[in-house]
């Protein structure tokens, strides 16, 4: 028994290009630097969330992608935030920040490991950051796989949606390794859960997820 669910919004961020619900978003960005790109995007979105600047690039990318699917899911504020789950995945775990942390502990004579760097050496901190910003206290899981696996995330989200504990989920893939980065996120909700069709209203199937991803 797989609970029927609907994809209500999705976004892709890759190669300095942003797509939300299938539409390309223009961004003022003359920089090839990934961090600068993220900061430009943050400013363009008027997020006013100073904590953003403390995050590593993986979390910055994740929090912006999540913001896009949440802002564009056509939901009212009137839903139970303890029933929103977050299921994400990637390939490189937290490699960028892992490297930064290693650099600070390599040399005994220049030994100043940073607690603010170390806290980002876990990939699921992205989930924590999204949960904190949006007060989502539903269940969550972070998977590490070679490439984005629509079946894996689809199966897990479908199973979670069977429970009365979960009505909505933010799902996807957020990967950063050097200047290579990619985010693909989508927001799903139980079909007919609010009895009003929200957002895009696309069927939550592995095939559909794969189509949106590619």
């Amino acid at each position, binding site marked *: 028994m797989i609970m029927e669910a609907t994809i209500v919004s999705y976004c892709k961020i890759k190669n300095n290009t942003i797509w939300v619900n299938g539409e390309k978003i223009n961004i003022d960005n003359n920089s090839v630097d990934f961090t600068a790109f993220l*900061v430009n995007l943050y400013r363009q979105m008027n997020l006013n969330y*100073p904590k953003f*600047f*403390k995050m590593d690039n993986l979390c910055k990318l994740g929090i912006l992608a999540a913001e896009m699917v949440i802002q564009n899911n056509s939901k009212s504020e009137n839903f139970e935030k303890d029933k929103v789950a977050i299921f994400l995945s990637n390939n490189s775990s937290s490699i960028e920040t892992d490297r930064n942390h290693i650099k600070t502990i390599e040399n005994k004579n220049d030994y*100043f*490991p*940073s*607690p*603010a760097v170390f*806290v980002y050496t876990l990939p699921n901190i992205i989930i924590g950051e999204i949960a904190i910003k949006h007060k989502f206290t539903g269940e969550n899981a972070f998977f590490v796989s070679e490439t984005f696996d629509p079946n894996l995330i689809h199966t897990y989200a479908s199973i979670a949606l069977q429970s009365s504990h979960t009505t909505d989920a933010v799902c996807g893939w957020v990967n950063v390794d050097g200047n290579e980065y990619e985010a693909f996120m989508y927001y799903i909700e139980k079909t007919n859960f609010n009895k009003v069709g929200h957002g895009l209203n696309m069927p939550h199937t592995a095939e559909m997820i794969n189509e949106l991803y590619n």
Partner: protein
Amino acid sequence: MNDLIETLKAQIIEQLNLAELKPEDIDPNAPLFGDGLGLDSIDALELIVLLEKHHGIKIQDPKDAKAIFASLQSMADYIIANKK
């Protein structure tokens, strides 16, 4: 003292990634934590690193940090009192 306060302002903004903040936005006597700059426990740990890295002062017990980092002024007072 004023020089030290200005130096600390710049160091804090850099070390804590307070990108949206300018040095003149920080009131030396306002609380750093809580409602002040919105800093949290990780920032407190980061300030401990800052003291060691830039001022050669090591805080052993995190419990001491609360009083030292009450404000920019208290931080400067602590540095002057403990500088070797």
